[in-house]
């Protein structure tokens, strides 16, 4: 029996349709700029939940009072033009005049008070930045006093993570704010298709006229959700997407030599290390500082960086990320020195070697499991028998925060407010996130540092007193490397990052003139 005519007709129709589709992707010179997100956001309000992806979106809709600028994350005026310290507990902020929210509400001290109070009382992790704020006092329309419970050097730093919201809309909208945010920022919210995309449009009345002298370079920006890394890459290569972050070394290799794609890398603040359970008796002999030093000498960081990460990382020689303190005291680096490692182990009575578990998430951090396996092989050479335990990410976070991981844990820390003590608070302070190495002397040093309100004095104290103690005497971690942040851009865009944080700040994006049709 012949192939039925209807089947052949259908085939012809399909073929014709394919031909006339043209390129549904590259057509349209004025199509919006598209940024890839590796996961959807669950709300557009950081007071509900604060995630990195959300900050990439919300940070372009809202401004903060104070910003972090430049490679060293220095404090810079945003909606607050200047500030003075009135006494140990009070900061006075002078606010910028002539700014309005995109719904017409004026930016005044009332907005600041509402914003700080609602974020301090919120469930999102943003409230941790305001835990020391006791009250916000309105002095006049453009002056606000911030009163803290205790003298705290981090107060202004913490404000860089706190957004400014319109008080009238914020109060009346309630939970609707999560799906329709309003701010003073360079972009306004247009639309959110859950699970798919968030669309923003340039705010033509943005107060920072020095930033966009000839008007906003971008009109519409779409954040598209795409969870699969190879699909993200395909989107970039096909021209559907203009900016992809979170690139792995393998993806970088594939992008080399691609005509319409540029890759930008710069050292970020993602620091990979082995968190050591040094609680007395918990995971012996890790509680002996000589053993911890030995482990530091037994790792060949450069080998991991070259082979696993294609050079996209760098070893470090301080506990605090570079650039965050003014005058780092030169500290001895822990380079590869197997002889010294073995000697230290012998001195600590572990010359015959010992067994230890190495917990790692599988795929949550860049090449985490592979690095763990490399470390296992390296430590075997000094007699340490490592058992790699890969954990599903949720399980890993859970057990790590409950201090249940007895052994070594592959971990990553970042500098969220640019304050040097972020890492200390997370790892070492007794009341902190994951104190696997409680130490009373360190607690005393840290509270002394926090009472030094003069930034220069504090920086010096941290660099000269706290750092050497932590790095040389306490040895709370096995240091690994700092990851490099890589972004890939289509050549429609140029980018001058405002700072080194890894959320996407659209203020640094501009168009090249390659697009025919202007814009």
């Amino acid at each position, binding site marked *: *029996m012949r*192939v039925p005519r209807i089947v052949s007709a259908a085939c012809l129709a399909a073929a014709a349709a394919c031909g006339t589709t043209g390129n*549904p992707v590259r057509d349209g010179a004025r199509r919006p700029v598209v940024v890839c997100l590796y996961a959807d956001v*669950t709300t557009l309000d950081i007071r509900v939940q604060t995630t990195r992806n959300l900050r990439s979106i919300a940070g372009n809709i809202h401004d903060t009072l104070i910003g972090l600028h430049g490679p060293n994350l220095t404090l810079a005026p945003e909606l607050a033009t200047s500030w003075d310290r009135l006494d140990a507990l009070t900061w006075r902020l002078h606010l910028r005049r002539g700014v309005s929210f995109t719904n017409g509400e004026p930016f005044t001290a009332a907005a600041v008070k509402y914003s700080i109070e609602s974020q301090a009382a919120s*469930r999102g992790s943003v409230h941790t930045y305001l835990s020391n704020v006791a009250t916000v006092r309105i002095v006049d329309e453009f002056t606000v006093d911030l009163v803290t419970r205790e003298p705290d050097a981090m107060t202004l730093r913490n404000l860089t993570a706190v957004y400014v919201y319109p008080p009238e809309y914020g109060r009346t909208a309630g939970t609707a704010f999560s799906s329709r945010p309003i701010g003073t920022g360079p972009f306004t919210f247009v639309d959110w298709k859950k*699970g798919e995309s968030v669309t923003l449009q340039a705010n033509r009345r943005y107060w920072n006229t020095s930033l966009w002298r000839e008007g906003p370079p971008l009109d519409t920006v779409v954040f598209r959700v795409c969870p*699969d890394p190879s699909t993200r890459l395909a989107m970039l290569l096909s021209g559907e997407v203009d900016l992809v972050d979170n690139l792995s070394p393998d993806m970088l290799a594939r992008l080399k030599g691609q005509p319409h794609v540029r890759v930008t890398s710069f050292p970020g603040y993602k620091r990979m290390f082995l968190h050591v359970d040094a609680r007395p008796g918990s995971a012996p002999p890790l509680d002996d500082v000589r053993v911890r030093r030995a482990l530091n000498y037994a790792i060949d960081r450069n080998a991991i960086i070259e082979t696993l990460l294609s050079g996209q990382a760098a070893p470090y020689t301080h506990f605090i990320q570079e650039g965050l303190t003014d005058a780092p005291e030169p500290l001895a680096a822990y380079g590869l020195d197997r002889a010294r490692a073995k000697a230290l182990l012998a001195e600590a009575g572990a010359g015959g070697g010992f067994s230890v578990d190495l917990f790692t998430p599988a795929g949550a951090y860049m090449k985490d499991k592979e690095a763990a396996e490399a470390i296992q092989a390296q430590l075997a050479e000094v007699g340490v028998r490592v058992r790699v335990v890969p954990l599903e990410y*949720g*399980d890993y976070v859970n057990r790590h925060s*409950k201090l249940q991981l007895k052994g070594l844990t592959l971990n990553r820390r970042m500098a969220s407010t640019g304050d040097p003590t972020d890492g200390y608070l997370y790892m070492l302070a007794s009341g902190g996130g994951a104190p696997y190495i409680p130490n009373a002397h360190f607690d005393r040093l840290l509270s002394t540092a926090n009472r030094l309100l003069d930034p220069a004095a504090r920086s010096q104290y941290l660099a000269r007193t706290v750092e050497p103690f932590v790095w040389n005497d306490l040895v709370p971690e096995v240091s690994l490397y700092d990851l490099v942040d890589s972004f890939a851009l289509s050549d429609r865009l140029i980018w001058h990052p405002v700072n080194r944080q890894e959320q996407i700040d659209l203020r640094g994006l501009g168009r090249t003139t390659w697009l025919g049709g202007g814009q």
Partner: protein
Amino acid sequence: MLAVIARRMADAGAVLLLVSAAVFVALHLSGDPVPMMLDPSAPASEHAALRHELGLDRPLHRQYLALVRGAVRGDLGRSFRYGEPAVSIVLGRVPATLQLAVAVLLCSGLAAIAAALVSATQRNGWVDHGVRALTAVVPSIPAFWLGVMLIYLLSVRWAWLPTSGRGSWAHLIMPTICLGLMPFARLTRLLRSSLLTVLDASFVTAARARGLSRRRVLLVHALRNAAGPFVAELSTQAGLLLGGAAVVETVFAWPGIGQLIVQSIGSRDYPVVQAVVLMSAVVFVSVNLASDLVHAWLDPLLRDV
């Protein structure tokens, strides 16, 4: 007949209760959602406060009873991640999943009918061999690999189709191909073998002898009689597709239920996971119930309670 209905509904209720218990236990064994929702440096007091706010510090049996009571009212709690009612989040994803499921069923069903018809009527011809080889090879192609290859060829290399996401009909093509291969293979083989059986039956010879055209005999009489296993398999595939195809949805950034459940499990969003599982169970059980009742009504022999 009423007794049949009552008995079947009681069975359905028991199944749903079992499902709810199973998913509840599995979720609570899988870990604590609270550390994932808080900043790493949050102190223990905050963990306790959040646990209390989410109702996770109540005894387990009370939490389960609250789940069952709410389920009966149609309230499956609020998502930990989104803050919105879990039911509405799931329902929000249904259109995308439904669109993909319908496209897959239509395309694979029609393609299977065409392939089986040609294959059965030209038995042992080259088309038949081709179709049989295809249906043998196709189930071994991993959907993930196929998806990535299709994207590379059709979007990056030749720029015929968009890479991912949901939008125009062009966005539907590649996910449908990836998801549709397995159903196509199974449906084709089933229909082919039942067609072969039917075409050998005496009523077909009798119909031809009466002068009916080959086409009419094939399409009207033979196909209808061979349709039984095909329809059964089609409804099984429908059920599976409506549950969401997590891998394909992830590769193609298709905002369906599959992606939702994977993300919700990863972040221990209990209410959403429970909502997806329970709602899918309700759909399955209802479809089965309806089909059972229809069969029982049609065939009195099946009314044995």
